[in-house]
């Protein structure tokens, strides 16, 4: 791989992810507004929020680990973006693979836990313990889904998976070949996004947004950037595994936004589960669906 294309991809892919991610945040807030019969935020609202938060004039830091934690949270996702194949920029993704990508998506939660730990706010500690429990809950179905998909395609290389799906047309898409795993994957994605039925660790009225309680100014701005990356990562990963990736940017973006609209729409009409109910639900239904899906795939 030539160093020029490498450098270009390293710079361009997180940038594209950030811009698309901001559009996804806007879509999420617009869907919420439409479901509540409101007008909703203007077009550039996510950008205004991020600019404003980074332009705060007094910043309250709780120490070095607080700042490093936020950098880890964003950095993990920036690394994950470069490993996601998008139309036209597959170089690093071909070298990486599914396992490396999964490792990268774990880093933000751990970085956030570090940063919140230094804040020494009880609400934050409760929030982060719930967040890590939720991670434990949704990782079991996620790993089953990832294993099933990798077994089905016979590779952990995301670029090869897309090539297989695009060569055979819609009938060879992951969602058509492994519908049960696709449904279990949707469950896991909902947990990964931390949206409404599974957002006990944020719980604004109860523990004051949990991990974010001591984050102001640039720290909260960093978490807003992280949210853009998080939505993008989840949507693109699902599109890559089950919907045949993108032939070009138009179909790629349409698929990503459509995939994301499903959990967001579900989120806005549901109340939330308690932590133990979340673990019970996650370890029961998506795991059963996933194992059933595995039984169809395995020879």
């Amino acid at each position: 791989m030539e160093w020029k294309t490498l450098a270009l991809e390293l710079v361009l892919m997180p940038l594209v992810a950030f811009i698309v991610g901001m559009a996804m945040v806007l879509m999420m807030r617009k869907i919420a507004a439409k479901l509540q019969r409101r007008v909703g935020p203007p077009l550039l609202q996510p950008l205004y929020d991020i600019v404003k938060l980074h332009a705060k004039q007094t910043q309250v830091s709780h120490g070095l680990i607080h700042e490093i934690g936020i950098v880890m949270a964003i950095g993990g996702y920036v690394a994950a973006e470069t490993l996601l194949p998008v139309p036209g920029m597959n170089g690093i993704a071909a070298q990486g693979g599914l396992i490396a990508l999964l490792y990268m998506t774990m880093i933000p939660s751990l970085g956030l836990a570090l940063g919140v730990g230094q804040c020494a706010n009880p609400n934050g500690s409760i929030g982060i313990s719930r967040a890590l429990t939720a991670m434990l809950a949704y990782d079991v179905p996620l790993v089953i889904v990832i294993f099933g998909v990798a077994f089905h395609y016979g590779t952990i290389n995301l670029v090869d998976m897309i090539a297989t799906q695009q060569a055979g047309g819609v009938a060879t898409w992951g969602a058509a070949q492994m519908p049960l795993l696709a449904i279990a994957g949707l469950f896991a994605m909902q947990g990964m996004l931390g949206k409404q039925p599974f957002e006990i660790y944020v719980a604004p009225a109860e523990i004051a947004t949990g991990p974010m309680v001591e984050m102001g100014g640039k720290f909260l701005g960093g978490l807003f950037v992280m949210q853009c990356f998080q939505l993008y990562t989840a949507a693109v990963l699902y599109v890559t595994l089950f919907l045949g990736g993108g032939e070009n940017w138009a179909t790629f973006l349409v698929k990503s936004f459509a995939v994301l609209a499903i959990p967001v729409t579900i989120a806005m009409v549901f109340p939330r589960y308690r932590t133990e109910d979340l673990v019970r639900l996650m370890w029961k239904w998506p795991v059963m669906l996933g194992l059933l899906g595995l039984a169809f795939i395995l020879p």
Partner: protein
Amino acid sequence: MSALDKIQVREERLPPSKGQAQAGKGTNPLANVFDELINFARSRSLFMLHYCTGCGAIELPPAMTSRFDMERLGVQPMVSPRQADILLVTGYVSVKTLKRVILTYEQMSAPKYVIGICSCTVNGGMYWQSYATAKKLNDYLPVDIYIAGCMPRPEAVIAGLRDLIENIKHGEANSWKDYYQRYDHYLGNQQRLFGEDWQTPTNVIGEARHYGLFGPETLGAHTALLEQYQRPLDALDMKIEIPELQRFQRP
């Protein structure tokens, strides 16, 4: 003569500092582009901490939800003072509540704005004769916008927010600087109400020094009194209060 009657009320408000507006006049026309962009982003994205002290709080849910929808102006509720830009004080503040309001205000990161909703924050309203109620919020915190009324309708709340947005866009909503620059004045009023050993965990003078917001009236007689009484912040000692677990603790 009660302690409340001794409060010296200062009528005039300092004009907002014109530093930002005049910095680049006559020089490069693009010199202020970045500041103007930031001011615009600030005006269009306001996170609001509603400290619901009184009856005005009931007018906020309709202003936030589908009927009047604050989010189209970029205003949305937040739950912790660290994240918030606006402190909404809705209704009367009793002396006990005012302590919490001041603690909350000092924890917010600047630029921060205070909105007083209802007549009670303007002049005490129907609680004028109450011994336990702070009368003018502006004596204790720098208020940006008052929305008068008993209670103001959601339209009035939205109109007030629009005024604040205009002020921020033109760089005129600088009363948070006033709190640093005239800290002695505000602290003096607070001390008259809470007693002379009043103190908060936030080091306002240190922040003013760090961020270059020191004014001629930051230090004075009242801050000298504060230094006299100030105790250093100690960490709370860790104790397990669960009786079942205390068996396992070493004596």
